[in-house]
């Protein structure tokens, strides 16, 4: 079994490309099922396909992108792929290292599909790594998600967000987190605009998307994070704001807001790529914790590698045990004794067999964790004639 990951992320692809390959949860799960034993992790910053054996997932990504991705998409195998997933789940590969949203996104992607033993193991371990990094390091103590960075930028424009009014476009998970960050800084979520006009727990007035231009005159901050495939706010619909700045954060992929808004007087617009550049500047204090987190990830990657390597000797160990058990059973069958005596003999011979096989089993697994697993397995199969059966 070979684990392969193929993907693109904010490290290698601009938002224009990422927005073409971003999939919603249903489409991602559907794509994963089409690929066989696979998981599709698709967020605003990355789309990655984790596949065990099966067909090359790069073709699927290129089909979404509408262009060849040679030199852009990355492809990793086995331990490298697992290590990558662990780093992703720990938030170490995120736009803001240590951010917590990605762990939930990894869980959602994993739980959306049925997986085989290898993917099951690597994703469960990845979720454990993510939790461990958060519990054993301080990397996630201060909010450092995309949404909190967005709120920090809003505060950069206004100084103090108390009394500032915000319009939230889209009521998805990231939108709610952004609203929570703005609220914690004192802003009032005045309006929530989405297709279903659903009210949020923050108390914002629900409005439809067609009411956004009118609401702009009444707000200071606009955060947009819908999954709409097209631009939902054009620059010519934004009112003049000379006396009061209007700050737009577009964390949607594809982008929701017309980039020309940035050119308007009194308006500032940051998209998700701009956020990446900004948050990279704020990470100095997190670097020490990130180093510790990397060590934890490396430990877990080593555990995975050992587990993965042990799979190489498992068939040999199973064959050896079956061979020994067959001898034990056949020899016992030749003995004529009472039932009580037979039970005693069964127990004693079973214990002898277990003790005899214990050390070879341990040593083979140790060898498998190193580089000699296959050699030991071959030797055992040769010595005991396991291939002759």
């Amino acid at each position, binding site marked *: 079994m070979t684990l392969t990951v193929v993907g693109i992320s904010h490290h290698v692809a601009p938002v224009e490309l990422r927005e073409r390959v971003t999939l919603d949860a249903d489409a991602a799960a559907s794509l994963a099922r089409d690929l066989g034993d696979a998981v599709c992790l698709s967020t605003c910053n990355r789309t990655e396909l984790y596949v065990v054996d099966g067909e090359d997932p790069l073709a699927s990504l290129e089909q979404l992108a509408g262009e060849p991705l040679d030199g852009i998409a990355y492809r990793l195998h086995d331990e490298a792929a697992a290590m990558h997933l662990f780093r992703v789940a720990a938030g170490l590969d995120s736009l803001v290292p240590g951010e917590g949203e990605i762990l939930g996104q990894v869980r959602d992607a994993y739980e959306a599909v049925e997986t085989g033993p290898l993917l099951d193991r690597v994703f469960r371990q990845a979720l454990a790594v993510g939790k461990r990094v958060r519990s054993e390091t301080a990397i996630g103590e201060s909010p450092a998600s995309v949404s909190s960075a967005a709120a920090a*930028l809003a*505060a950069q*424009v206004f*100084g103090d967000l108390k009394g500032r009014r915000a319009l939230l476009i889209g009521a998805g998970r990231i939108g709610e987190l952004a609203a929570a960050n703005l609220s914690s800084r004192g802003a009032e979520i005045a309006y929530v605009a989405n297709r279903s006009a659903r009210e949020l727990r923050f108390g914002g007035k629900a409005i439809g998307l067609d009411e956004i231009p009118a609401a702009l005159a009444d707000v200071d901050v606009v955060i947009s994070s819908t999954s709409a495939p097209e631009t939902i706010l054009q620059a010519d619909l934004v009112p003049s704001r*000379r*006396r009061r700045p209007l700050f737009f954060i577009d964390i949607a992929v594809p982008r929701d807001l017309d980039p020309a808004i*940035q050119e308007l007087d009194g308006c500032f617009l940051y998209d998700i790529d701009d956020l990446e550049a900004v948050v990279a*500047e704020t990470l100095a204090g997190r670097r020490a914790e990130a180093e510790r987190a990397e060590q934890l990830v490396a430990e877990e990657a080593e555990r995975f590698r050992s587990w993965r390597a042990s799979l190489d000797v498992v068939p040999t160990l199973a064959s050896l045990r079956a061979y020994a058990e067959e001898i034990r059973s056949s020899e016992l069958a030749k003995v004529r004794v009472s039932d009580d005596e037979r039970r005693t003999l069964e127990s004693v011979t079973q214990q002898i067999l277990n003790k005899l096989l214990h050390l070879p089993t341990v040593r083979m697994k140790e060898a498998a964790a190193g580089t000699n697993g296959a050699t030991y397995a071959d030797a055992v199969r040769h010595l005991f004639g396991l291939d002759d059966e």
Partner: protein
Amino acid sequence: MIELLFWPALLGYGEAALAYASPRTSRAATWGVRVGWLAQTALLALQAARADGFPWGSWSGSLNLFVWLVVGAYLIWGCRPRYRLLGLGVMPLAAALFVVSRVGGGTRAGGNAHYSNLFLVLHVGFVLAAFAGFTLAAALAALYLWEEDRLKRRAADILRLPPLGTLERLTWRTILVSLPLLTLGLAAGVVRLRQESKGLDALEWLTLGTWLLYGAFVVARPAGRRAAYVALGGFALVIVARLALSAGHFA
């Protein structure tokens, strides 16, 4: 002896002017400002102690006092890390003006006997304190414009700068505090002119125009870039007034 204090003050200001250029040395720059300002404070105290009258009545003496007021105003909150760029604008100017003051003899002991101490304290002291405030407001406004441009360009290091809204508020408050000082200084000057039955000269008309501009600013409270441009325009008048002062207002 008094003039020996000029050197540690200049050294502090000069070091700050250079050290603010790099984030790595900005902490050293802050200490340079503090040490320099303390040395200049001692210099001014000694000048006041040894003078018979108001020691900063000459243009160079008033420049010495002006530098001290500007740096003092800056010290109130300008040494915070996010305001490093403000120091980069203020401290080279302060160091340069301090040197000019010394060249003109403003750091020596002695006073101006032509005017009463009370008038000089009220007129020169208040006007210079107001000008120092306007200088700081202009630096804040310049920083505002620079940062706004950085925001428009989506600069990555934007969170290291003071919030844009805070800069706007500080500019307005600095002018709000400085304007009454200018009002008091002008009032003292007008009272003296009436006593001497003189009319307003060009400098006094200019200063009155400056007062009107800043007064309109406080009342109208413009926002955003417009506020910054008005603050900088007012500062341009302050510069002209300072130069005219050097040309012989007290001569």
